[in-house]
């Protein structure tokens, strides 16, 4: 090995604590890039492959009942490549050993051939035989969650008939990567299942012989989705069409899409911050090393080493840091990716998600880290190369201190000499001080941003689950039932309180703008399900008017007092002009609310409802579930307490994980910045500090200079960090808000103080570690070394 390379290794060994501190920051960037980009890639590729192989639909259409004779016309629509009619229905399931009822989504299995579109991927067993009335195939997660095997049986209430069903196969479907029941908030594999049943049996059960109520469509490559949707809606109109929609509104796909977008956003935004901080640290440390090694550089040049060799020597030193950072980053990233894969496996049902991060993502993240480090080291390395050999042999001129306004001010304040030293060096290198503060600011911001998300989510959950929805359960009916049914519900065991509510699928129009959604109708003064605004106040739809969420109003360009055209897609499918009487700010959903009695009046009908909200006596739950399975036309049951609990468990788990991750990140950044800063200070000030000691200053007083400057920088960094954190929070609110969601910008004072506490403590610890070197400072040798 060449002597110069030995110097390289020994220098690195001497610097390893500093190097590792930087490498850890760098590794955060690498790991996050690896995880988010790798996961993004894996998810995107897998989804594309899955959709292609299993012919995922492009457009869907639900109707009340359309005759099969309509099919040729639908097939002939311009841009339609293939269609698949189905009969779909909902059923309350009775599963042995499970006291609560489950809900099943019934899908018809075509009689003559395998499905053309949304082809389920068989996981075990086989497809149900066309003539069987009892055999079904279910989605694999449902089977696993309930411990079903091939041959297991369960009962279903099919349109009022209790039937025994036997599982002959399990499958996964591209339509249900994210499997969530209608009206549900979270996937619940145990309580919600997809059930493929032979067409003939389904049609018989739901009175759909010769008809269908659901259509999947695949469009040709050059077709316009909007035009196809319009054509479908026109043709389906007479048959109770409920509005065709594309993938953007397909529940499963829109969830996967938003996850993918989030990963991509994360890959674009977060790692560069770490890379930038690492580059700054590298440049600071390398700058100091080159300054310290001036005479060695001069010597190497005098001996005959070329500028390039010297430049490379210092770049290589930085390269070591990069290598360590990349290695840690790859390790941590691989581990994180695995953790994330587990997370995804919980939420998404992919048949073959390749959770392996592609090799080239490793290459990219490594390259990014290397380039960043090199950029950080470039200035110092070039300075080393440019150093004139003769000048390098002379001691550097002492830095020029000029008297400035600040000095005058300091003199006025009669500060002690150590304090003056701290302040002077703070202002002497304003660029370095600013960058250090910015680096520490990012550490603060990382904690602020993470805590903000938690608070925001908590607030959303509180408003949605505790203030707006206070019912213990929601009973969903297949279609509108007379409100008198509520008397039956009240007679059920354990039901304490029952309130009717109605969901009416409708299209809201204002000129060319339109939105299809479900209008929620309730009575004024209902207690269990209420509309709560972001301000925490209860809003009520006035009779004769609509209450709209602000998001919906702005998408339709409507204000209070404007008229909105509402085309109701159920019942008599009437269109009414209604006045907007109120707006309410909400975190999610495109809410449109009306008064139940007013709507009944408009429709000239006796009171109807589609949902009953109930409160329950916990002691009678089992008796209740036993009876529910027998109520006709009950299509679903949402146990709000279960939902709340699982939502909160998930959030709590995420909160712990996220807080830990971001606090670790903040500590890494702080240590990286503060430790290196203090080491450089110590090296620059060694003589000065030794002089102070020789002059009789105590160890404590001298430590004060060193620790004081670090803490001064850390303190100045706090407001910067708070601002950065608030800015990031604001950006997250912006990035998060979509057609469906928005996030409240809640910044509680305690998240700022917590962030500051974490960073100040880490900074103090870093400075104290460096301070220990002060004790070992050999006063004589420091004064003797030439610099």
């Amino acid at each position, binding site marked *: 090995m*060449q*002597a*110069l390379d*030995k*110097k390289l290794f*020994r*220098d690195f060994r*001497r610097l390893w604590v500093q190097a590792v501190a930087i490498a850890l920051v760098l590794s955060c960037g690498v790991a996050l890039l690896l995880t988010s980009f790798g996961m993004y890639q894996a998810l995107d590729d897998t989804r594309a492959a899955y959709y292609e192989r299993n012919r995922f639909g492009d457009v869907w259409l639900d109707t009340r009942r359309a005759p099969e004779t309509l099919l040729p016309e639908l097939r002939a629509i311009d841009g339609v490549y293939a269609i698949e009619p189905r009969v779909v229905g909902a059923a309350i399931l009775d599963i042995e050993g499970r006291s609560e009822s489950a809900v099943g989504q019934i899908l018809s299995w075509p009689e003559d051939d395998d499905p053309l579109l949304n082809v389920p991927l068989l996981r075990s067993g086989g497809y149900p035989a066309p003539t069987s009335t009892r055999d079904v195939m279910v989605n694999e997660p449902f089977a696993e969650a309930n411990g079903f095997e091939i041959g297991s049986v369960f009962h279903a209430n099919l349109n009022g008939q209790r039937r025994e069903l036997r599982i002959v196969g399990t499958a996964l479907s591209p339509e249900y990567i994210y499997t969530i029941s209608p009206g549900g908030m979270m996937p619940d594999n145990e309580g919600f299942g997809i059930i493929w049943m032979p067409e003939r049996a389904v049609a018989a059960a739901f009175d759909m012989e010769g008809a269908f109520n659901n259509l999947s469509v695949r469009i040709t490559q050059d077709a316009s989705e909007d035009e196809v949707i319009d054509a479908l809606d026109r043709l389906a109109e007479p048959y109770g069409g409920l509005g065709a929609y594309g993938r953007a509104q397909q529940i499963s796909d829109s969830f996967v899409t938003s996850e993918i977008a989030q990963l991509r956003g994360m890959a674009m935004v977060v790692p560069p911050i770490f890379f930038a901080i690492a580059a700054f640290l590298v440049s600071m440390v390398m700058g100091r090393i080159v300054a310290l090694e001036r*005479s*060695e550089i*001069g*010597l*190497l*040049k*005098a*001996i*005959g*080493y*070329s*500028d390039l060799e010297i430049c490379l020597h210092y770049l290589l030193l930085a390269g070591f840091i990069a290598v360590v950072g990349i290695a840690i980053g790859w390790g941590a990233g691989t581990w994180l990716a695995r953790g994330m894969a587990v997370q995804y496996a919980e939420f998404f049902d992919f048949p073959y998600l390749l959770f392996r991060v592609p090799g080239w993502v490793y290459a990219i993240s490594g390259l990014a880290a290397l380039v960043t480090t090199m950029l950080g080291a470039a200035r110092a390395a070039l300075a080393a190369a440019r150093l*004139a*050999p*003769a000048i390098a*042999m002379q001691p550097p001129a002492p830095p020029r201190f000029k008297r400035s306004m600040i000095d005058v001010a300091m003199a006025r304040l009669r500060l002690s000499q150590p304090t003056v030293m701290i302040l002077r060096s703070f202002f002497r290198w304003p660029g370095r001080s600013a960058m250090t503060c910015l680096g520490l600011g990012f550490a603060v911001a990382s904690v602020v941003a993470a805590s903000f998300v938690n608070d925001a989510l908590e607030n959303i959950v509180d408003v949605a689950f505790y203030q707006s929805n206070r019912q213990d359960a929601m009973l969903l009916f297949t279609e509108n039932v007379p409100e008198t049914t509520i008397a039956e519900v009240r007679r059920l065991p354990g039901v304490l309180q029952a309130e009717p509510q109605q969901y009416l699928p409708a299209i809201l129009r204002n000129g060319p703008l339109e939105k299809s959604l479900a209008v929620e109708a309730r009575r004024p003064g209902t207690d269990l399900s209420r509309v709560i605004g972001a301000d925490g106040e209860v809003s009520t739809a006035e009779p004769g008017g609509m209450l709209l969420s602000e998001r919906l109003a702005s998408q339709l360009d409507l204000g209070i007092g404007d008229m909105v055209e509402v085309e109701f897609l159920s019942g008599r499918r009437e269109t009414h002009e209604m006045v907007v009487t109120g707006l309410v700010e909400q975190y999610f959903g495109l809410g449109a609310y009306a008064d139940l009695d007013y709507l009944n009046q408009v429709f000239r009908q006796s009171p109807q409802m589609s949902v009953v909200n109930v409160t329950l006596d916990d002691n009678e739950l089992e008796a209740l579930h036993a009876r529910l399975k027998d109520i006709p036309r009950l299509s679903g049951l949402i146990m709000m307490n279960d939902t709340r609990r699982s939502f909160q468990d998930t959030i709590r788990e995420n909160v712990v994980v996220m807080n830990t991750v971001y606090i670790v990140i903040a500590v890494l950044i702080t240590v990286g910045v503060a430790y290196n800063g203090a080491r450089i200070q110590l090296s620059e000030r060694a003589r000065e500090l030794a002089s102070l000691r020789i002059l009789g200053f105590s160890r404590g007083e001298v430590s004060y200079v060193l620790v004081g400057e670090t803490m001064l920088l850390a303190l100045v960094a706090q407001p910067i960090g708070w601002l950065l954190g608030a800015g990031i929070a604001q950006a997250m609110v912006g990035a998060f808000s979509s057609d469906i969601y928005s996030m409240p910008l809640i910044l509680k004072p305690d998240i700022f103080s917590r962030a500051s506490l974490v960073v100040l403590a880490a900074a103090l610890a870093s400075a104290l570690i460096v301070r220990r070197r002060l004790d070992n400072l050999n006063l004589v040798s420091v004064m003797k070394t*030439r610099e």
Partner: protein
Amino acid sequence: MAEVIFRTEDITKVYDTGEVKVYALAGVSLELYAGELAVLLGPSGSGKSTLLNILGGLDHVTDGRVWFRDLELTDLNDRGLTRFRRDHVGFVFQFYNLVPSLTARENVQLVTDVAPDPMPAAEALELVGLGHRLDHFPSEMSGGEQQRVAIARAIAKRPEVLLCDEPTGALDSKTGVQVLEVLKTINDQFGTTTAVITHNAAIQQMAHRVIQFQDGKINEVHVNETRIAPHEIVW
């Protein structure tokens, strides 16, 4: 007449520090001969180091010309000068300039790694009387020993010229004498043209020739009829 190794023709070196122009060299014409040991004497700030740096290809002249044998150094660019240093010159500095993270042997290897025809590092250290301290780090050696490592490093490439800038400047007289002994031995044994800068007048007595500097100019050159050995020098 011995062969001329270095020749300078009316060289000047001006440092422009903004407010004032400093004439570090104000017209210096000089020849150094093969095999001679020349001492450059003069007060601090008289331009000795500047001249030595220019001869060694570490610095550029402001005006005038410099030759190393037939090679005109004033024509060379940085790359050419680097090559020239690598192939022909050995330097010894006042503050030794050892790399602290390398042992004595490895410090010498820094040179032998890049020189065209070096001697083994151990042999060079043997020559300066440090054969027993090959694997010591600079921090484990005295100033005189460190300077001898620096000399070993300078001679390990078998240079034609050895340029020493105040090699004893940081040493006490006893260790300083040891260092001068080594320089004399090298000069005697290998005939290496050696230029030694000093502001210590006592040292001039060991030289073949003494060149006196004053205010960036050569004041006086004289040849020593009788030289004395370093151990006879006292200061």
